[in-house]
């Protein structure tokens, strides 16, 4: 099913490990959850990962049941096996001041800029500057060296904007490099673009097995490919449990037509659900139950079509089951575990050796 699955664990075949994972997806597909689970999954065996939030919705803090993240990198979870997940919610305004300070030593001038409304300008209306800062910060974390001279983070996972905006978001630096044709901004933009287009980066798309999310995923993949951005994997999220397999569904739906309701009513009655005679409790259950089976059949057929569509993309695919009562920390670890079992860290590990 997945290219990463099938990759033989031989050192010689190991490609460049992915170090920047950009997670996108249509709204409502759970990309924040998937990004968090991925950061956990990649943090096994003593690795350090950084989970970056760029949309300022506080979703990561909520997922990990911690208080709102400040604009600083802080440890948010420990992965099984001893790895650490750090998290950072990028505030574009602070990132800009940070950036100005770091590159231009503009401490006081930076504050003056803020007073003048220049920071407002930069982060709300100036073309793409906000996105430049967000992508720039993530790329800085990817390239940063740790105290021991190694990489500060083994992997950086970005909870990115939705599929509809992702290509533009990632390509913003190209645009800016065109606007600022030389100078520090130009150089910075180009450096970011080099990281984003390198083999170290992968853009993963989260989808559901529903028409519109799959359609957006297919469109998104085409756009990313056209823009020369590296597409990673497709993550099918919130997969509903297969209560009935397809054969059972066919039979259940066929049964209604074949008039075997009586037998079903009797069986229900046998199980203590009331009388099977017409108007009895068990008998009255038959129609609604069969109706639900028909709906289920329709859904199963639809999911099969959508799955075929995803397979057509020829990308590594991972599947995550729906977590019943919404996501809590336990569920996040289960998802991370599932990703690991499906081998999402495979390339990473091979490269690390």
């Amino acid at each position, binding site marked *: 099913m997945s290219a990463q699955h099938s990759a033989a664990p031989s050192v010689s075949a190991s490609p460049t490990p992915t170090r920047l994972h950009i997670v996108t997806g249509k709204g409502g597909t759970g990309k924040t959850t998937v990004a968090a689970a991925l950061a956990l999954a990649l943090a096994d065996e003593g690795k350090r990962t950084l989970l970056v939030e760029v949309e300022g919705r506080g979703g990561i803090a909520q997922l990990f049941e911690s208080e709102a993240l400040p604009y600083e990198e802080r440890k948010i979870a420990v992965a099984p096996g001893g790895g650490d997940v750090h998290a950072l919610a990028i505030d574009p305004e602070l990132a800009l001041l940070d950036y100005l300070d770091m590159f231009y030593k503009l401490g006081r001038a930076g504050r003056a800029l803020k007073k003048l409304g220049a920071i407002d300008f930069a982060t709300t209306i100036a073309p793409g500057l906000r996105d430049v800062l967000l992508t720039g910060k993530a790329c800085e974390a990817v390239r940063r060296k740790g105290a021991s001279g190694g990489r500060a983070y083994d992997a950086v996972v970005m909870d990115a904007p939705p599929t509809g905006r992702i290509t533009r978001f990632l390509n913003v630096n190209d645009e800016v490099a065109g*606007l600022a044709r030389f100078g520090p901004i130009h150089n910075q933009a180009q450096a970011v673009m080099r990281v984003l287009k390198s083999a170290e980066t992968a853009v993963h798309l989260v989808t559901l097995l529903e028409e519109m999310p799959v359609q957006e995923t297919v469109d998104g993949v085409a756009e990313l490919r056209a823009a020369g951005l590296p597409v990673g994997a497709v993550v099918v999220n919130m997969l509903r449990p297969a209560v009935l397999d397809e054969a*059972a569904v066919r*039979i259940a739906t066929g049964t209604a037509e074949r008039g075997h309701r009586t*037998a079903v009513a009797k069986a229900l009655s*046998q*199980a203590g659900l009331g009388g099977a005679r017409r108007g009895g409790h068990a008998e009255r259950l038959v129609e609604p139950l069969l109706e639900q089976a028909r709906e289920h059949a329709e859904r199963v057929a639809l999911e099969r079509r959508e799955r075929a569509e995803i397979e057509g993309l020829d990308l590594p695919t991972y599947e995550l089951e729906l977590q*019943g009562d919404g996501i809590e920390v336990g569920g996040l670890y289960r998802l991370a575990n599932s990703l690991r079992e499906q081998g999402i860290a495979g390339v990473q590990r091979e490269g690390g050796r």
Partner: protein
Amino acid sequence: MSWQTPLLDIDPLLDDRGTRIIVCCGSGGVGKTTTAAALGLRAAERGRTAVVLTIDPARRLAQSMGLTELDNTPRRVEGIDESAGGQLHAMMLDMKRTFDEIVVQHADPERAQAILENPFYQSLSAGFAGTQEYMAMEKLGQLRARDEWDLIIVDTPPSRSALDFLDAPKRLGSFLDGKFIKLLMAPAKAGGRAGMMFLNVGLSMMTGALNKVVGAHLLRDVQTFVAAMDTMFGGFRKRADATYRLLQAPGTAFLVVAAPERDALREASYFVERLAAEDMPLAGLVLNRVHTSGAARLTAERALAAAEALEDLAAEWPDAVDPASNSLMNAEVDDPVDEAADCPAVENLPGGRIVDRDTGKAEAKALSDPGELPAESLAASLLRLHAERMQVVVREGRTRDRFASVHPDVPVAEVAALPGDVHDLEGLRAVGERLANGQPTAA
């Protein structure tokens, strides 16, 4: 499940000629676009001349309305029942084109040309974060001003923070009033570097710093742009303010759209509070994709217990071919179906065995279809399926009740989930029905 929140009655809202604008807002993936389109269709078929404005970059409205051509002007949607005297138009926002139109409309030709050719403008208008929201409000204002439709239904952008479009006019205003703009314009106005002389030391340090950061030529592009836009700024702000007031007016109704999931309803809560804080008139909450069951009285727990009992039963009689067991089973059926019409000559017995009444001899035989399941197994599967459904129903109910207890005054319309996606008028009509129904009737 007692739930006393008031019902959001969609039809009176659509029929009220006083309703001129309906804004659908909500987080991504909750069915905003579909809701907007379904409302538009229903309004049109009830006699309103409606236009649906969608801002979504994915051509979803086009898909769901069966339209292939959707540009920056409203197009009439075919296939609508216009017998009540209504019409439906639909359009998708083209940010760049909307921005260009404003420029052409409000600047003299020479200046307009300069702006349109400015690289800074070209990037800005192509729709970086934020532009979409400004332009959506601009377009809404334009549509309202044309006064060709008596109802405008707006689908809001999938903003990072949900109500960016509300902030857009204000932010634009405060930005335009800001010193930074004046600083940027100063040199250009005074004819280049000479202007700098009038700036105090602090400011010249600033422009120096800016030059260092962004590069002189980029700053120049920005300055030219800002200077060229200068004459338009007043108009910009005026219209942005007007649109903002329009949203607060009595003819506007906000619908917060959500799905019965924790995250979506949390966002919905935020919307409701934000709208109240901004004095925006909230009509209610549309809760999409609500699951129901025609057998809601059978709980998940009981269904599962019954399924297990049946599976045990089936395991005890593993496709027995022993006639003796049949009669035993026949005797165990405690509630035999007593109506001949239901079982003419052949009576189905549990386990898929059949009793031939004519001969009176119980004969075990597999049903002709090899894919046939014994009735117990089939019933057990149906019960398991039901248990899953009921778990969803209960979970959704809990989530919804949590919202309702925090916002007891917000009227709610629930829309029963459809098994598939909506992408034709028929589907939109069905959604409209369900919307108007307000209470999901069991599937």
